[in-house]
């Protein structure tokens, strides 16, 4: 018989027992080394977007978003679980690019708790992938994360143009773009509802704001977002 393994690290669990990791909450999913590298976003972060920082004021990025007449009041706020550090990059590489879908389950408890605390009763809407990307990848990572929170989700967004190659542009060039990549397929379902968007990473906040734009136009009362990671 094979020993039971850690979900993420795929090492036998009992290797961990000899040292002082028993009581940590990462137990059974991550090894001690991982739990040392993961940075959970706790008390100190931007109150609008969860960017980790030294106090809980509104960060410069958010101030800039709200200054713009076009973008202000699109996104109520963002909530994230962990800081997007090197460890998180490795995790995303395995989850999204290596396509080890089951890894999302590692954060199931925390996602459920975060949702209940911040967005109870909100409609859960995953950020969609384009058809092309969907065929390449075989699954939508945001939808997988969303379904960890609750199986009943509202998958009403579609992506009409292919994502730009974001890596080639600078942070603020990206923000300025006002392309409209998303459409709402069923307007009735979001009318007068509070919506929370689900994505894997919040980087600049442009993606969720673009999605929020069309949801608000379709009559949603408010749009917030929650992500696994905040970079």
């Amino acid at each position: 018989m094979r020993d039971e393994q850690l979900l993420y690290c795929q090492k036998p669990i009992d290797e961990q027992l000899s040292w002082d990791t028993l009581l940590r909450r990462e137990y059974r999913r991550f090894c001690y080394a991982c739990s040392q590298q993961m940075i959970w976003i706790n008390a100190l972060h931007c109150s609008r977007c969860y960017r980790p920082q030294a106090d809980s004021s509104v960060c410069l990025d958010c101030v800039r978003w709200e200054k713009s007449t076009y973008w202000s009041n699109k996104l109520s706020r963002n909530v994230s679980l962990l800081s997007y550090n090197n460890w998180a990059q490795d995790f995303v590489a395995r989850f999204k690019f290596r396509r080890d879908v089951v890894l999302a389950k590692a954060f199931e408890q925390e996602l459920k708790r975060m949702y209940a605390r911040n967005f109870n009763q909100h409609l859960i809407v995953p950020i969609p992938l384009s058809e092309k990307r969907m065929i390449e990848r075989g699954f939508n990572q945001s939808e997988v994360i969303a379904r960890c929170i609750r199986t009943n989700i509202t998958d009403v967004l579609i992506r009409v143009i292919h994502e730009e190659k974001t890596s080639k542009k600078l942070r603020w060039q990206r923000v300025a773009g006002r392309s409209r990549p998303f459409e709402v397929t069923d307007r009735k379902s979001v009318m007068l509802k509070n919506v929370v968007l689900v994505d894997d990473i919040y980087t600049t906040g442009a993606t969720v704001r673009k999605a929020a734009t069309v949801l608000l136009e379709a009559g949603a009362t408010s749009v917030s977002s929650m992500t696994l990671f905040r970079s």
Partner: protein
Amino acid sequence: MKCVWVVPKGQLEPVVLPCDLVQQDDDVQSEAAVITHLKPSPPLPTLEGKSLLTSELTDQQIVTRRQLIAGTVQLSIGISLKRSAPTCNRCGNQDKEQFAMFDCYWCGRNECLYCRSCIMMGKVTTCTPLVHIPITEPFPKTRLNWHGLLTDAQKRASNQMVEILQHRTDNELLVWAVCGAGKTEMLFPLIIEAIDQKKTLLIATPRTDVVLELIPRIRQAFPNLRSIALYGGSEERFQSAPLVISTTHQTRRYFQYFDVVIIDEIDAFPYHYDKSLRFAVNKAAKPSAKFYYLSATPPQSLIKKLKTNNQIAMINRRYHGFPLPVPSLKWIGDWRSYVERGKLPPKLKAWMNRQERESDRQLLIFVPSINVSERLESIIARKDIICVHSQHAKRKEIVEAFRHKQYHCLITTTILERGVTFPSVDVFILGAENDVFTIAALVQIAGRAGRSLEDPKGDVLFLHDGTTIAMKQAVKQIKRMNER
């Protein structure tokens, strides 16, 4: 900025890219590393003899299409189900825990399975077609560049190996050789015979260190024979050659490719009990393949199975003819509580001082766990004393540096217990009472001492907090081997 090897989408050849230029659809092939650690010239991909995903074939799809129509390559499903028990047809994984179910867009089912065991080589799902490509390889006229002589015992074993390849009847041989019997050299006649018969060889070993140690020796001995080394992170993963030296893990990449399979350390972790690796080696071998098992401490079941047909070759003496060093058992009390308090156990300190005073050799200290190795290193805090373990990023470099005597002492977990040789060392086992030190492990570790003709001796100390049966048995086995 670190770099990685990637195969860009639609390309077959891997290239080195800085991490920030990697795109989402690139197939990342290596760990991120600094550029100096990645070889500048790209490895050449060869598809022959591999089990591949169609995504790995993009540029050659036309060829594959033609081959599929002609029936020269075989197609199978990624994961087959027999009475709801899944098997991954690439790596042979059958452990239910190592499969996950997901909502698959490709086949539109929410119960598509994928294999987590080999996902690092690209995702295999139930609905993935796997392409198995057979092989045609050139075989050179072998030229042996080795001028040593085999001892009589080595010659006898070597002949037995060659005979099995020449006659059809038997297809298995256990080569039971004490540590330091000179196994590599004994393989040379077998390699010559195999290549002359245009047969492909696999040398599978459980540990990367052993692959790295073997490959230069083999290449030096056979300068015109193409051979490749496969291990996690190896740059030669895309190539094929008549002689492949591979970790057991990496043999998963092959499909009915090898005529001769030599399995080193048949008793070793992880091969000994990992069924999926056994499957991998069997899948990599042709149905008609000959199997050679090398071991200093073979499992009883194998001995029993092969004894009846005289399929065991025995070598009791080291190639230099000196007996194996017999370990001494030394009680050192509750060493663990000292280490946990950040102190060097006084008895260990005394033994280390004495070793340094009275012996010219380097020192290998084996410890039961990674944690102990790291703690001990920081407690001793000496520049010439360093630790190494399976999780250590610089493992290769450190072992190399120790071999070049840049360190006096190496603290290691059991990763170094087998295969790796240093010419002149004394060996301590700290915490020899620990369960990780089985009889086989203890015999292997003791065998690290006295490996060279210049220095055929070496002290082996089992430093313990209570004698175990394994320790007594290990000493008994070593004494028995010396008597023969």
